[in-house]
């Protein structure tokens, strides 16, 4: 609390009662990143003891989009595909933080006995993934990079949730799946082989990640709170970097995994701290490269006819809160 | 006998004012019955203190006529007036005892009888008194707390009579109310009804298939013929003026003459209009 008052005092602002909201509502998703750790450590609560902190769990970016649109949350976390859909549809939010870039935590796993060695061998096979997720986007991107057209090459893409993917896998109904943890590990243990991971793809420019969004009004009204939350996130990332063991212990409950497994998945994504944000979010004069990633994502989805059209790069650039990391 | 005050007041101003009037009534049920109307051009006036008995062969349209009088059935053509106003729907002024009992199956007998009183906002103590009076009248005190399905056929019919009488309407329409009763209960009920009428002089319209019953009760007797249903006889019953006992009336010459006349009129209807016979 001393930190909070000092910041307020430093900036010469009015006391929190008028400049701070009564309540901060955060829509989070269970992903092994800094936000979840900040929640587990209770950092935000410690920073703003007089503000009610309300953590609301979501299971998909679609629901976060809806909640944002209905004004039910102030902060939210979405993956790149739903995020760019939201921006393309001019939902009332802006990006303030890139939490992580997905690495090996999402991967294409195929049956060892399916004869699939590379993406080229997917022809005529059945591959499951959760549509509109980062995995789905990565899978489509990977195929496109290899110039494979799922329709022409008769690759059946199936829209399934993780438990159903596991069930279908056990029945040999599918040949493979592009999926995240913990299902990914389960598939590997049940005779699966990894063909390609999101880390490989990100190196080829097919980047997927998860980023924080904030309600436009809220960001305009309480810029200090946004900055304060960024400092909290930064603190959480550093805590993880310094004490990965403790961090994994803290997250294991939310993740539903053992501490060891938790640590493994935490390591499979790239955690970003505040200092790395400038590169992605940019400055007012020079928008960051996240806009390009989102634009690419949007364009790709427009080509897939998932969204009717992808707006210009400027729209994505305007969606970035670029004045936070000067 | 207890009668609530409004009825008493009414009974004092004995007159011949028309209570219900049917003008040129005809009735078709959809397009069945070979295009013949069920009721054809019926004109009928019921006075405020009439006691009308309606006789007629089975299926001639007696119940249909009663339904029109009650406001349950809209006639295809013609007008129904009650107290000189158009009569377009069921009304609390016109009580009905149905051919089939029609008790509310989820209410005890007591509650069934009480229903009409409740609807008239009669006070609770008065309701209690009236219910027990009418239960006694129809001999169902011991079945007060039973549900209709627990009663015998005749008991149900009696309960439904009590239910209608209890509300004390201006006119009572009864559709073969005593047909399921044994001779003695029936005789008792007849005596009760006649007494009720003599005291209150309310308008009673009484369908029966028993010519003797009609002669003993009715001030006025109607006979219907069927196919199409129409009223062929409308006579003032001379017997209703007599003050002799039932037994005496039954043994009078006039009684058996009238009985013979009515029976042959009804029989005539059959001979003329139906193929129903004993030709086998």
């Amino acid at each position, binding site marked *: 609390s001393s930190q909070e008052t000092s910041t307020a005092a430093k900036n010469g602002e009015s006391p929190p009662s008028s400049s701070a909201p009564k309540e901060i509502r955060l829509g989070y998703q269970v992903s092994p990143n800094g936000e979840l750790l900040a929640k587990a450590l209770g950092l935000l609560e410690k920073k703003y003891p007089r503000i009610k902190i309300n953590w609301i769990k979501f299971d*998909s970016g*679609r629901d976060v*989009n*809806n909640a944002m*649109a209905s004004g039910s949350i102030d902060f939210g976390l979405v993956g790149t595909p*739903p995020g760019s*859909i*939201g921006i393309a*549809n*001019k*939902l009332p939010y802006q990006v303030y933080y890139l939490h992580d870039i997905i690495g090996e935590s999402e991967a294409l796993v195929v049956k060892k006995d399916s004869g699939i060695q590379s993406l080229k061998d997917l022809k005529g096979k059945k591959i*499951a993934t959760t*549509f*509109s997720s980062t995995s789905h986007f990565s899978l489509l991107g990977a195929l496109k990079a290899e110039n494979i057209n799922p*329709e022409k090459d008769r690759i*059946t*893409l*199936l*829209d*399934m*949730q993780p*438990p*159903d993917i*596991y*069930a*279908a896998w*056990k*029945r040999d*109904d*599918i040949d493979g799946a592009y999926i995240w943890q913990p299902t990914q590990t389960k598939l590997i243990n049940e005779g699966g082989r990894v063909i390609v991971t999101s880390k490989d793809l990100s190196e080829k420019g097919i980047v997927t990640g998860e980023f924080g969004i904030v309600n436009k009004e809220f960001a305009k009204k309480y810029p200090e709170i946004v900055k304060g939350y960024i400092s909290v996130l930064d603190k959480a990332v550093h805590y993880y970097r310094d004490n990965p063991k403790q961090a994994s212990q803290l997250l294991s409950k939310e993740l539903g995994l053992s501490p060891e497994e938790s640590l493994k998945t935490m390591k499979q994504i790239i955690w970003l701290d505040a200092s790395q944000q400038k590169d992605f979010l940019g400055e007012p004069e020079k928008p960051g490269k996240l806009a390009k990633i989102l634009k690419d994502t949007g364009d790709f*989805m427009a080509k897939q*006819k*998932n*969204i*009717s059209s992808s707006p210009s790069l400027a729209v994505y650039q305007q969606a970035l809160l670029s004045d936070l990391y000067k | 006998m207890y009668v609530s005050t409004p009825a008493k007041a009414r009974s004092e101003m004995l007159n011949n004012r028309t209570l219900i009037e049917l003008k040129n009534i005809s009735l*078709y*049920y*959809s*397009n069945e019955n070979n295009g013949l109307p069920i009721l054809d051009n019926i004109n009928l006036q019921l006075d405020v203190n009439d006691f009308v008995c309606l006789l007629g062969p089975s299926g001639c349209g007696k119940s249909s006529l009663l339904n029109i009088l009650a406001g349950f059935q809209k006639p*295809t053509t013609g007008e129904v007036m009650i107290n000189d106003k158009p009569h377009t729907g069921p009304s609390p002024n016109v009580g009905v005892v149905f051919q*089939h009992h*029609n008790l509310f199956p989820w209410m005890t007998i007591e509650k069934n009888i009480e229903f009409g009183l409740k609807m008239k906002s009669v006070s609770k103590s008065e309701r209690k008194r009236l219910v027990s009076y009418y239960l006694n009248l129809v001999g169902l005190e011991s079945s007060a707390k039973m549900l209709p399905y627990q009663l015998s056929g005749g008991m149900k019919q009696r309960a439904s009579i009590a239910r209608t009488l209890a509300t004390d309407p201006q006119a009572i329409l009864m559709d073969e109310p005593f047909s399921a009763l044994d001779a003695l209960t029936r005789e008792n009920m007849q005596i009760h009804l006649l007494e009720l009428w003599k005291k209150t002089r309310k308008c009673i319209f009484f369908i029966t298939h028993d010519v003797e019953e009609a002669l003993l009760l009715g001030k006025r007797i109607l006979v219907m013929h069927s196919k199409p249903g129409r009223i062929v006889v409308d006579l003032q019953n001379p017997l209703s003026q007599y003050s002799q006992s039932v037994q005496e009336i039954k043994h009078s010459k006039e009684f058996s003459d009238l009985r013979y006349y009515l029976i042959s009129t009804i029989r005539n209807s059959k001979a003329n209009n139906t193929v129903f016979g004993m030709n086998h």
Partner: protein
Amino acid sequence: MAPKFVCKKQVLTRGISIISIVLILIIWTVSTNLKWVDPVFLPTPQSVWKAFLELIRDGYKGASLSTHILNSLYRLFLALILAFFTAVPLGMFCGMSKYILAIFDPIIEFYRPLPPLAYYALLVLWLGIDDKSKIALLFLSAFAPLFISTVSSVQRVPQDRINAALSLGASKPKVLLYIILPSCLPDIITGFRTAIGVTYATLVAAEMVAATSGIGWMVLDASKYLRSDIVFVGIILMGGIAILMDGIIRLYQHIQFSWVGKQD
């Protein structure tokens, strides 16, 4: 004269219904065009119409619109037919005999309220990701309302009516077929209408897994991409088809059950 009167009444009710629909359409048009509601969630009628034309022309994600509809209807009808021919006979036996009811009752009472989403993975495990598991899910959701309404209506058949039939020489199976079934049919049809509604409402859940066609999947998929124009096309199509189906059943009810509510 009488039939004319009925006609007039029918025209009037039809008219009121149409006014009611038109009113909703007007409210929709006005509220969206004046941007009272975010068009991302409640699209304008024009954009829905445009999306509809587009869907007719191009289909949705690799299948024509009619394929989507027919695939869904195939699943739906198969499930409903299966449910009808299992739930109604079973319900009739259970309604007749407390002992048979006692066998099945705990099972049906238990599974009945379970959310399909909670046990769908099990169905996938047992029946695979093809139509089989989808139809099973739809079947299960249709079964319960049909079963309940059958049982309770059988229990309500007057005992005297059954006695009459038995005395007329009907064997027990014949009583079931010729007396109890027709007595219950009005109730069963009402139950069937509820079942259709419930099954229909489960369609999206059923097509959530491993579907690449079906109107339910289309709606769900489009909603992921905030394509609410397509979502609305799907919803309106589903609603329209459902109204059509229900209308046919109600017509049948109207024609067939003229005796209901008139017996004394």
